[in-house]
């Protein structure tokens, strides 16, 4: 089945209300028995005595969306999922705010849990997205995924 390339990018933080709304939309899908959710939150890291105030995210959007489309196809092939939703922030996200939301649903819990974890790992490794850590004194450094 051909799925069209979805946009995953949201300008600014991901609102908790948006996440709640997304969960509530699934109540009509009554064959779902398990959801798995991962949320990434901007951490106030201390690096050489300076605290991270925010992360500014940029992406090579065309390439990232194409790559995410491939990941989505792979995951649907591999796991019996009902739904998969992925959102990633662009722009400046303050420490404590949500910058990534991955949401998978299946009939039983295991595919949802495994697929959710795999999506998070793959998107961190494969999507051309960059985070610039902005310190409280307005200096910055570029984040590196560990």
């Amino acid at each position, binding site marked *: 089945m051909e799925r069209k390339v979805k946009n995953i990018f949201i300008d600014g933080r991901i609102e908790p209300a948006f996440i709640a709304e997304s969960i509530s939309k699934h109540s009509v899908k009554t064959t779902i028995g398990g959801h798995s959710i991962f949320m*990434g939150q901007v951490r106030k890291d201390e690096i050489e005595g300076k605290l991270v105030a925010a992360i500014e*995210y*940029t*992406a*090579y959007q*065309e*390439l*990232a969306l*194409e*790559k995410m489309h491939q990941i989505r196809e792979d995951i649907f092939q591999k796991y019996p999922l009902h739904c998969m939703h992925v959102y*990633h922030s662009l722009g400046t996200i303050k420490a404590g705010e949500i*910058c*990534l939301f991955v949401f998978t649903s299946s009939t039983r819990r295991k595919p949802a849990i495994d697929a959710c974890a795999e999506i*998070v790992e793959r*998107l*961190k*490794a*494969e*999507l*051309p*997205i*960059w*985070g*610039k850590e902005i310190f409280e004194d307005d200096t910055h450094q*570029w*984040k*590196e*995924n560990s």
Partner: protein
Amino acid sequence: MEIQIISFGKISEFIAHQKIEISDIRNTDELKAYLETSFPLLSNMKYKLSLNKDIVQENTAISNQDTVGIMPPFSGG
């Protein structure tokens, strides 16, 4: 031929988006050597190239009007 260079993340701080005229560069390996000479900071960094809509995995031929992206390691999520 003329190609468009676009850069991202840390690399965008020292390589601006620009069109460059190249005469004797035929593929991405030759372009890498050219870029590392033109922008010495690049030679000490990990980076990948994209060619139009694909991430370059192996040496690939370049054509007139192609767009080449220069990408440092990803740090999304």
